[in-house]
């Protein structure tokens, strides 16, 4: 491995984004280290998801930019972000509803595999081997997030919690270096949230860096190594949970000054 390892996995430098007159992000700079769980919190409308969308290539930032794994990220190309190793889930779950759970995860392997049309038509040995590997990896991932018994069900028929898990499995199928979860605990009860906490912790232990956007402050504080707080599109603080929790500006942002 290279000297890159010492540097942060992701660096945001003065990222700005406007929607008309609304300044959704004001020069946000932060850095995510390798192997950590990094929490991004803030009140509704603070710009968390906007930041996410800029980073994953869904929006083009109006200023600043991102460096990932030592090289800049190209704006406005979410497929390239995934190829670089950034995978994400969505706040409002976005699965491929009319495909089975297994197929959803198998599609996730797309960016790490190569078979083309000719391979599919002529079914050469390389294509067959790749297809078998895709299937096996997808089955393994369904086991990993513990929804293997739903493999052949349509994604749309899965329970809410299982859909969240399936979305994570699909993201993991792209072999991400950085897994971005946008409010994964939204709408979950206490038991489901606890299971999710274990899952996220497990993913980190298996070597994937995690960026977590979350409303559930308890979950964030218990799980994250470092936390950043956004308010009105600006970064308030970036530090370990114990410090963030006691910060006067954070308390004001959440309770209103």
């Amino acid at each position: 491995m290279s000297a890159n390892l010492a540097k942060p996995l992701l660096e945001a430098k003065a990222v700005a984004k406007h929607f008309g007159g609304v300044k959704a992000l004001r020069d946000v700079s932060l850095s995510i280290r390798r192997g950590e769980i990094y929490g991004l919190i803030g009140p509704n409308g603070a710009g968390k998801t906007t930041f996410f969308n800029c980073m994953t290539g869904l929006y083009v930032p109006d200023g600043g930019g991102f460096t990932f794994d030592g090289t800049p990220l190209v704006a406005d190309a979410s497929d390239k972000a995934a190829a670089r190793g950034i995978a994400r889930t969505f706040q409002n779950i976005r699965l491929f509803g009319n495909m089975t759970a297994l197929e959803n995860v198998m599609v996730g392997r797309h960016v790490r595999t190569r078979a083309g049309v000719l391979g599919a038509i002529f079914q050469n040995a390389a294509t067959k081997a790749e297809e078998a590997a895709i299937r096996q990896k997808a089955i393994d991932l369904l086991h990993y997030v513990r929804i293997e018994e739903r493999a052949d069900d349509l994604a749309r028929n899965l329970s809410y919690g299982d859909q969240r898990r399936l979305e994570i499995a699909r993201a993991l199928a792209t072999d991400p270096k950085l897994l971005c979860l946008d409010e994964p605990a939204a709408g979950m009860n206490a038991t489901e949230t606890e299971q999710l906490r274990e899952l996220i912790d497990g993913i980190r232990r298996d070597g994937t860096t995690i960026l977590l956007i979350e409303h559930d402050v308890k979950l964030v504080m218990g799980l994250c190594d470092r936390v950043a707080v956004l308010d009105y599109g600006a970064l308030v603080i970036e530090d370990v949970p114990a410090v963030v929790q006691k910060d006067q500006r954070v308390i004001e942002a959440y309770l209103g000054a």
Partner: protein
Amino acid sequence: MNFGHFFRSTVGIATLAALLVALPFVAAMGGQAWVRILDFAILYVFLALGLNIVVGLAGLLDLGYIAFYAVGAYTWALLASPHFGLHWPIWAILPIGAGLACLAGVVLGSPTLKLRGDYLAIVTLGFGEIVRIFLNNLNAPINVTNGPQGITLIDPVSFGAFQFSGTTQILGFAISGPQKYYFLLVALAILVVIINLRLQNSRIGRAWQAIREDEIAAKAIGINTRNLKLLAFAMGASFGGVAGGIFAAMQGFVSPESFSLIESIMILAMVVLGGMGHIPGVILGAVLLTVLPEVLRYGVGPLQMALFGKMLADPESLRMLVFGLALVLVMRFKPAGLWPSPVRRRELQETGK
């Protein structure tokens, strides 16, 4: 009863093969016209399966599909007829036709990449009409397409000395032109079925389905949606081009009239009515929508005579009325198509209650 298992068993395949071989000879008892109807049924199976890649798998609503069929047909017509005095062989024309159609697919595809659903439908509809109007008017200043008169005396399909037009004696059997075309078309249709099946369960096929389901999510997991949509358009168009070539050779005549909007709509109806994205369903849809209007053409008149003793309504107009009604009823009571994929059927049963 499980059709899927039946068709995969050896007995099933043998039965199906025997049926396919016997069919043109059974149809010939009713006259060669019925064999020609069979030919067209298979030709539409081929076309519908080509469109199925674009609409059924990638979810791109294409209302101009007939344009690619037209490109293929005119390629054949221009390269193998007295119009330009060219008589190129099939192995040269068919790939050129497919290639040109493929190119047309990319030309249509590239400006529409950002469009979805109804917007895409309108642009593709316009494209289909543009191609037809071009063919209609490209007879001046240089006469390329011979305008509305069309091109006549087009060479039939032939491999060396073996001609597909006219009757041939094979092993003491007299095999007519339409019957020979039937076997050619069945062979091509089997090929396109295999290609469809293999694509559907492949890396590319899954990516298409992902784009159909949710384009943003597909992009987020690294699918290059632009290239894959173009690929879908190009592949679907190539099949259309091949079908067009065979059509021109079989008919011996092409004119812009054959490539109207209603044709595009009929092929789309075959895909939707049969069961979008489900290959056996699409085949069923194509066969039904080709054969049913013909059965009605010959059946409606005698039926009226038998029921009422006289002709109450003009068979020709009644035929389309019954046909339209049948379409409405199928969509009302079988919204996923006559033969939807098993997963989709289960889905509708679960949510329909």
